[in-house]
């Protein structure tokens, strides 16, 4: 319950950034599709709009903790009966709520686009779901680095780590690729077509495990961090 409370509170704090992002999605995507787009254009549009969400997830996660410490609001929250793990889970929950709204917008945009090019609607929603997994991975990694790095360094470190996963996956054997969630999701996104999305249950489970592992690592680091001193 506390996690959801913190999540909703975090979502509220991030509302202006989210409103701008969703407005961009609707205005830019709508204008693009209204102008008449081919199946390939449509596919590129959805993936590029989704990738903005990945960047947004990483940035939000990397700066959340820093902002709370800079404003000292973290003290009023952590003086209550919640653990630091709940606090981090609440922040992650808030980021995922924000990106859940963005994914709904992405799915709606995809539905409209699919109807215009006479393609099935379901893949657009599957793509939105796949992006949710990508958002979760980006947010959990960003949050992990933010527990001990400045937000700019944290987001850079998260980008480097996820890029390294993709690089590693591209050079790994096919049987190993599914075990590298960053790469497996990247591949699924790359192979998206308005007709179908190829994602396996294994990829989904590995992505969830990846996020859980980084969240646990965040909790371990944050549990020993001094939050009493203000950060600049």
């Amino acid at each position, binding site marked *: 319950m506390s996690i959801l409370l913190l999540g909703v509170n975090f979502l*509220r704090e991030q509302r202006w950034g989210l409103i701008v992002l969703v407005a961009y999605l609707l205005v830019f995507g709508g204008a693009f599709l209204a102008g008449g787009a081919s199946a390939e254009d449509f596919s590129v549009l959805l993936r590029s709009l989704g990738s903005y969400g990945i960047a947004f997830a990483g940035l939000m996660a990397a700066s959340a903790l820093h902002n709370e410490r800079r404003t000292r609001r973290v003290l009023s929250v*952590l*003086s*209550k009966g*919640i653990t630091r793990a709940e606090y981090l889970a609440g922040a992650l929950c808030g980021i995922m709520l924000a990106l859940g709204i963005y994914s709904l917008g992405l799915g709606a945009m995809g539905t409209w686009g699919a109807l215009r090019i006479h393609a099935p609607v379901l893949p657009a929603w599957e793509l939105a779901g796949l992006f949710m997994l990508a958002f979760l991975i980006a947010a959990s990694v960003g949050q992990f680095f933010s527990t001990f790095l400045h937000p700019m360094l944290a987001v850079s470190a998260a980008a480097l780590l996820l890029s390294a996963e993709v690089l590693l996956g591209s050079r790994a054997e096919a049987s190993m690729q599914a075990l590298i969630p960053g790469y497996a999701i990247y591949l699924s996104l790359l192979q998206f077509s308005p007709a179908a999305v190829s994602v396996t249950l294994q990829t989904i489970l590995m992505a969830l495990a990846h996020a859980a592992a980084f969240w646990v690592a965040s909790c371990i680091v944050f549990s020993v961090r001094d939050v009493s001193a203000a950060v600049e």
Partner: protein
Amino acid sequence: MPPVLEYQNVTKEYRAAWRRPMVRALEEFSLTVDRGEIFGFLGPNGAGKTTAMHLALGFTRPTRGRGRMLGARFGNPKTRRRVGFVAENVALYHRPTRKLVRFYGALNGLRDPQLASATREVLETMELSEAADRNAGKLSRGMLQRVALAQALVNDPDLLLLDEPTSALDPLGRVAVRELLQRFRAAGKTVFLSSHLLSEIETVCDRVAIIHRGRLRRLGRTHELLESAEQVEIVARRIQAHAFAGTTAVDGLVRFVVPVRQQRAAIERVWSSGGELIRVNPLRRSLEDIFLEIVGEKPGGGEA
């Protein structure tokens, strides 16, 4: 009965970093706060008061030593549900006051209908009912401090940790908070209060600790600290005003102050000169005098 708050030889050092020397905020600091008392915690800026509170809440960890709050080790989340905290620099989310207080109450495990009634009561107590739907981010500093007190009280805590809780309040607000703390004490609860308003501490606190440069310098019951053990005030009549040094005479009453060790001799001189002793009292000092004496500052001057 175990103490509500206990520090055992706690040292807190902030590590040296690039171009920043190591800072020792607390050094071998030991203190116990008992149930049902209002405990005043004094010290100049940077003395370690806020660090001591933050250690109890688990915001930071002691470098050495340990402590317990409400029977559990410092930083226990379950224990924090029974604690209310007001930070020195009030920083709250920009939400309507009622929703904000509800949010903090819910984080402490309160649920409706108790949460709704506790929120209503605490807003009334802090005279915030009219501002209940106003955004806390747009309130004045004094009003915001009331909101901070409201969020600390919403869970009906057993222990209040207050770091400068009245610094932005007007005199009426301070009186209201003082009465609130006295009611809190009457209910058997405990207040650990840090403030620079020495008159406030003097009025309301049962015991006082003065900390300076991370070390405990003075600890005792407030009235005992205020009554000097070193000097007494003697008031007599029918004696020559110039018979004693430093006398003041008003309406035939002569008042003078002597060191305690000369008290007996002074009284005998009054009697032997045919004077009448009116009263002999330990000289009462203000907390400010004691504070300045301990931190080594003369009023209006530099380091002693």
